[in-house]
């Protein structure tokens, strides 16, 4: 054994060599393969990628003598750069493992393939998930963050016609410094926060009210009422939202009814203030059933003796609600309430499907009266191709939402049993 360890240094140069000498062929060949692939395919790709992310390309779009378009695509180069960095990190990880493993003694026991698989089971099982995590989530996030530091936007900085440049913090300076951007940002931000609070609070309390009333002692056939009140939750959200858009539209049934009783038709979705109110109303319809479903089980878990002893003390129904039910329910649902806030903060679908962010606000850049930060980002990305500013706002949302989600998460069960901090 000592004899075999002598060759361990070899694995610094040739990955897997020590393992092969130890007789661990599968592992050794795998490591060797990693090295070969890295040298043959990896290095050219990485070199180009790293050069690409550093320079974002140097060749401007033009036609060469043969009439073929020649250009560097800055965004593809940036992507290649990020992929290169991620892959290099993974390869370094494998390399470090390879060297450490080389100095380890060979497993004494004779093991079958089945045992080997079983021993490394967790790594095998987790690899698909981790790879998707790195390439489908981490990669896009890094990419989005980096875009905020470039000038990637229509009309003059759009590949392949033009190159994109690194601009440092200029976009951040602009969004806070330039009046039109600044005004849009603050306006949309204030409405987003107001909306998230109103939307969460209204559906929470309507849900609670429904649950309390349906479960109160005097009500017969509770199951029927509960089923009716849960219906909006079961109807696919997008469908409900589109239906609501039609119901509240200029020639929709609500206005028909209003006209019928002799009043003026209202711009439910076209008047800036009324549109906001309508959105909250619609969200109540969509969101309250969820809270009702939750409350029903939470209410039955409140210890009965609390109510009994308060009866003895002569508490009124309102006092019981105020001092027992609401605190108990709030305590149990706090994490969900917070995540509901975070959800509404980014409730793109509702805004997009019902008002589309409208009515138009001439004082805003690329945003309407009811646009949330998230739908503003969407418009900047897909309609206006202002990718750089969209990324800046994305980073801001992240900085606002992250602490909120993190806070609510640290209180959940799954997290508490894990002593991570």
């Amino acid at each position, binding site marked *: 054994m000592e004899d075999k360890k002598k060759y361990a240094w070899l694995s610094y140069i040739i990955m897997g060599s020590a393992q092969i000498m130890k007789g661990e062929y599968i592992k050794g060949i795998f490591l060797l393969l990693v090295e070969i692939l890295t040298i043959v395919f990896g290095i050219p790709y990485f070199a180009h990628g790293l050069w690409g992310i550093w320079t974002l390309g140097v060749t401007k779009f033009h036609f060469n003598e043969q009439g073929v378009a020649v250009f560097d695509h800055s965004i593809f180069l940036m992507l290649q750069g990020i992929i290169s960095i991620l892959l290099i990190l993974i390869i370094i990880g494998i390399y470090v493992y390879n060297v450490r493993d080389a100095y380890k003694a060979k497993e004494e026991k004779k093991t079958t393939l089945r045992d080997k698989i079983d021993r490394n*089971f967790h790594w095998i099982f987790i690899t698909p998930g981790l790879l998707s995590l790195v390439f489908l989530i981490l990669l896009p996030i890094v990419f989005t963050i980096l875009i905020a530091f470039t000038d990637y936007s229509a009309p003059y900085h759009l590949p392949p016609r033009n190159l994109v440049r690194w601009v440092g913090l200029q976009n951040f300076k602009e969004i806070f410094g330039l009046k039109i951007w600044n005004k849009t940002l603050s306006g949309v931000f204030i409405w987003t926060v107001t909306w998230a609070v109103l939307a969460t609070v209204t559906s929470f309390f309507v849900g609670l009210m429904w649950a309390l009333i349906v479960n109160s002692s005097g009500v017969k056939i509770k199951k029927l009422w509960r089923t009716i009140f849960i219906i909006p939750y079961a109807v696919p959200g997008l469908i409900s939202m589109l239906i609501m858009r*039609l119901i509240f539209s200029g020639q929709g049934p609500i206005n028909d009814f209003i006209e019928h009783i002799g009043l003026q038709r209202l711009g439910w979705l076209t008047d800036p203030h009324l549109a906001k109110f309508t959105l909250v109303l619609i969200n109540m319809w969509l969101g309250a059933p969820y809270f009702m479903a939750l409350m029903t089980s939470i209410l039955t878990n409140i210890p009965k003796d609390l109510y009994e002893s308060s009866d003895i003390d002569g508490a009124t129904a309102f006092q019981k609600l105020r001092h027992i039910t609401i605190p108990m329910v709030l305590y149990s649902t706090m994490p969900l309430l917070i995540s509901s806030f975070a959800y509404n903060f980014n409730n793109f679908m509702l805004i997009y499907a019902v008002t589309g962010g409208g009515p138009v606000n001439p004082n805003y850049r690329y945003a309407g009266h009811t646009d949330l930060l998230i739908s503003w980002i969407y418009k900047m*990305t897909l309609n206006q191709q202002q990718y750089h500013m969209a990324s800046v706002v994305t980073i801001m949302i992240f900085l606002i939402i992250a602490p909120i989600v993190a806070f609510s998460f640290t209180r959940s069960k799954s997290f508490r049993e894990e002593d991570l901090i």
Partner: protein
Amino acid sequence: MSTNTSTSEIKLVKKKKKLTPKTIALRALVYTFLITNTIFILFPVLWIIGSSLNPGNSLYSSTMFPKNPTFIHYKELFTKTDYPIWYKNTLKIAFLNMIFSTILTTFNAYVFSRFRFKGRKPLLVTILVLQVFPSFLTLTAVYVLLMNLGLYNTHIGLVLFYAGAQIPGNTWLIKGYFDQIPKSLDEAARVDGATNFTTFTRIIMPLAVPIIVFLALTSFIGPWMDFIFQSLILSSAEKKTLAMGLMEMVTGQSNTKFTLFAAGAILVAIPITILYAFLQKYIVEGLSSGAVKS
């Protein structure tokens, strides 16, 4: 009301209370509340059903209770529009997403719940941080990435993205559930010679059915509701989904597809509503697992 101390007497008082005019008034109030809310809840649903049966095709001319109801729009959906294609595409995407998401997430959750290995905690924290970043803030990146991989305008590209995006949040959810299954069961299985894989399929999975049903259901339903990524990733007519098609019917400039939309919406809502009704138990369990347990 009463300062009596014995509980039996309180019950007596309560029984008497039922007869007073005050309780009758209260009950009338409660039922009025329930009925008005029922109208508020059911109106949109009934309205869209009624509309789908209207003979005309514009919002303006349709009524909630048509005089001569017709199923013509349901027929037209299948003969005059791409509705069957959208339906087929959506079903395919939903089904694939369900399979991919469930496998990826339960695998991850099992490993994090049952194994203690180097790098476990940093990984868990990383997943947590990633979860905080709303997945669709990365629109542009996803678009460019799929373009690069040649997966733009393919269903598989969309499914890959969906399945990936749900991993962080759901891994924690499922892991929390797995953590509650006693470890002694695993150990007993190990003593009997089970491998990690058989422990997973024979012990953990059967005991985690409620949360897995919840996960499968939410990943199945997701693609029916999402519009953003579909409109970003899919571009050609034969790749279109229900969400995209229905959205166009409503937001399109011509105002002539309203009743078609109504019929199309109902054909989507019916199966999903039934699915929810049957799996209600699991949904409530899954949803409330984020609440603080007392």
